[in-house]
């Protein structure tokens, strides 16, 4: 399977640079569509700011809903990248080379999008900067013990780290590109290359920095999703106040991250004609990882629900009942099918495991993981301890527009990125080819 297509070294640049310099009609159509959808989301947000949060479906006691779900979802997607690419780098997995840049780019964009949601969700988004610690004369200082401040620092660190982690291996590529382009592209690549000269000192420093950053980014990525989980677990709400939440969320994040990576790779492979680079072996390996994470997710979910059910505490049972047999049950069982049954059957059986089934399973997992976050956020809030305060929730067109538009934003960012930079790290791939290790 691995020797399906042989690539000549001198063709690597040609193949991987071609998408940067040639623009086809379909690309423009995709760009415009994504732009329009994104603009629609922005308009919806503007409407929400103008009218007030009442245009959403939120009501007491469901104070958090769609936006926080999307926040957790996108932060989870961001683990695609960095975490997977870091693990593959640290374990010297050779097959990682065509995959890492695509994954690292997902991370940066998913974080940018995810980081927007807490602001969209605020009652007064125009004063979000009150959460930042800087000298001011409002006699106001952020409360560092609030998990939301932990979130702010964790996401800031993660975004900084993952931008650097994406940027470092990009430097040799942009330096090479700067030599072969003219005009604004030359100026952009030249500036980004920091006048990289390809000396052995630079290569040494780059390799060392990448190795260090891979370790560091693992430490941040795990902590970031743990902190997101702690937003919930630190509260006293039933079925939120759970010690398992940190690792449970990290597992879910990696799970949905791999799924996002698979979907993106499948699209990139088709549209940019990179069949020779993104080979079945890459999808096969990622699919195996997906099955592994699916099992792990199933284990955590079982551990969480079984202990709650056996403990039979009334407040928690109200939430659990609402999830598994009450009004949220259709969503719950869809989640189980998407997150466990589909990937386990389609990818666990070797005969069924192809690029197509891997992509289908990954798409199912994305749906399932979005539902999982929704089921964590809403039913708990809808069933507070005093039954007299129980409530319901249904989203409005504003929330659906904004959350839907973020997917368009992801597509838009990815389209622009793939037009500016090679989606596969060219120098890493060339090294890969010239060492005869395809």
């Amino acid at each position, binding site marked *: 399977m691995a020797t399906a297509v042989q690539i000549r070294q001198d063709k690597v640049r040609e193949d991987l640079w071609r998408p940067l310099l040639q623009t086809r009609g379909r690309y423009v159509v995709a760009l415009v569509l994504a732009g329009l959808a994104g603009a629609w989301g922005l308009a919806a947000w503007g409407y929400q700011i103008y009218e007030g949060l009442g245009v959403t479906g939120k009501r007491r006691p469901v104070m958090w809903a769609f936006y926080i779900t999307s926040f957790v979802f996108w932060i989870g997607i961001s683990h695609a990248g960095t975490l997977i690419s870091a693990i593959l780098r640290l374990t010297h997995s050779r097959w990682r080379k065509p995959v890492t840049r695509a994954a690292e780019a997902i991370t940066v964009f998913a974080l940018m999008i995810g980081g927007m949601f807490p602001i969209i969700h605020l009652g007064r988004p125009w004063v979000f900067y009150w959460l930042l610690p800087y000298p001011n004369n409002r006699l106001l*200082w952020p409360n560092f013990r609030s998990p939301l401040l932990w979130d702010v*620092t964790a996401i800031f660190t993660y975004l900084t780290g993952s931008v650097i982690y994406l940027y470092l291996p990009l430097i040799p590529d942009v330096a*090479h590109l700067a030599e072969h382009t003219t005009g604004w592209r030359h100026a952009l690549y030249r500036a980004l290359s920091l006048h990289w000269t*390809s000396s*052995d000192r630079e290569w040494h420093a780059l390799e060392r*920095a990448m190795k260090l*950053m891979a370790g560091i980014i693992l430490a941040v990525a795990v902590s970031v999703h743990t*902190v997101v989980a702690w937003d919930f677990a630190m509260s006293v709400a039933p079925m939120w106040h759970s010690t398992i939440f940190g690792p449970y969320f990290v597992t879910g994040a990696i799970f949905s991250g791999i799924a996002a990576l698979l979907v993106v790779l499948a699209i990139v492979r088709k549209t940019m004609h990179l069949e020779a680079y993104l080979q079945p072996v890459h999808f096969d390996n990622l699919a195996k990882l997906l099955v592994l994470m699916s099992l792990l997710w199933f284990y955590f979910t079982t551990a969480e629900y079984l202990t709650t059910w056996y403990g039979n505490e009334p407040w928690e049972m109200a939430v659990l009942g609402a999830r598994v047999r009450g009004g949220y049950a259709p969503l719950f069982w869809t989640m189980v099918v998407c997150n466990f049954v589909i990937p386990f059957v389609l990818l666990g059986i070797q005969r069924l495991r192809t690029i197509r089934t891997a992509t289908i399973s990954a798409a199912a997992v994305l749906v399932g993981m979005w539902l999982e976050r929704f089921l964590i956020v809403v039913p708990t809030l809808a069933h507070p301890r005093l039954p007299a305060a129980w409530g319901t929730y249904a989203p409005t067109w504003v929330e659906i527009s904004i959350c839907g538009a973020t997917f368009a934003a992801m597509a838009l960012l990815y389209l622009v990125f793939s037009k500016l930079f090679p989606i596969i790290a060219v120098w890493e791939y060339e090294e890969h080819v010239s060492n005869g290790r395809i």
Partner: protein
Amino acid sequence: MFLTGEFSQAEATGRAIEALKAKGFGPQALDMFSTEPVELPPGVLDRPSRMSLMAVAGAVVVCLLAVVFVYYTQRSYRLNTGGMPLFSLWATGVIFYEMAVLGAIGATFVMFLWESGMLRKDHAAPRWKGAEGELALEPGRILLRVRCEPEHFAAVGECLYAAGASRVEKVQNKS
């Protein structure tokens, strides 16, 4: 002044480096250029690095700065917390952890710029696409540049050719 030799194989470059080191041109005087990383056996052209150490140092420093920052600002913006302590190490521990990691990231990036020589522009690099007849960096080629005085040119050039260089040229200080 620099003298640059062009090679096509890593092994030949390694031999040239060993020979030059025997003549007293240490790693400080040598630079190797290639479009992809060249793997030489350990000990041939090592670049000692303090990056890991500095990453740890950056983590410790920024973490301590964060602790001091939180400690003093919680006191100078004193608010009644209703019995809760003004400063709580456990409840703010996540922030210190994240700041430590941020310190490590920052230190790593700065050390990358420093050790790669990208911050210090004191040595010129060969051009990518040279003019006709000039040495240029192209895929598959390795350029070994030696910093030396003109009186050593002959000896260094001999070394380079003996190891298997296909061409040797003088390069001006500014490219």
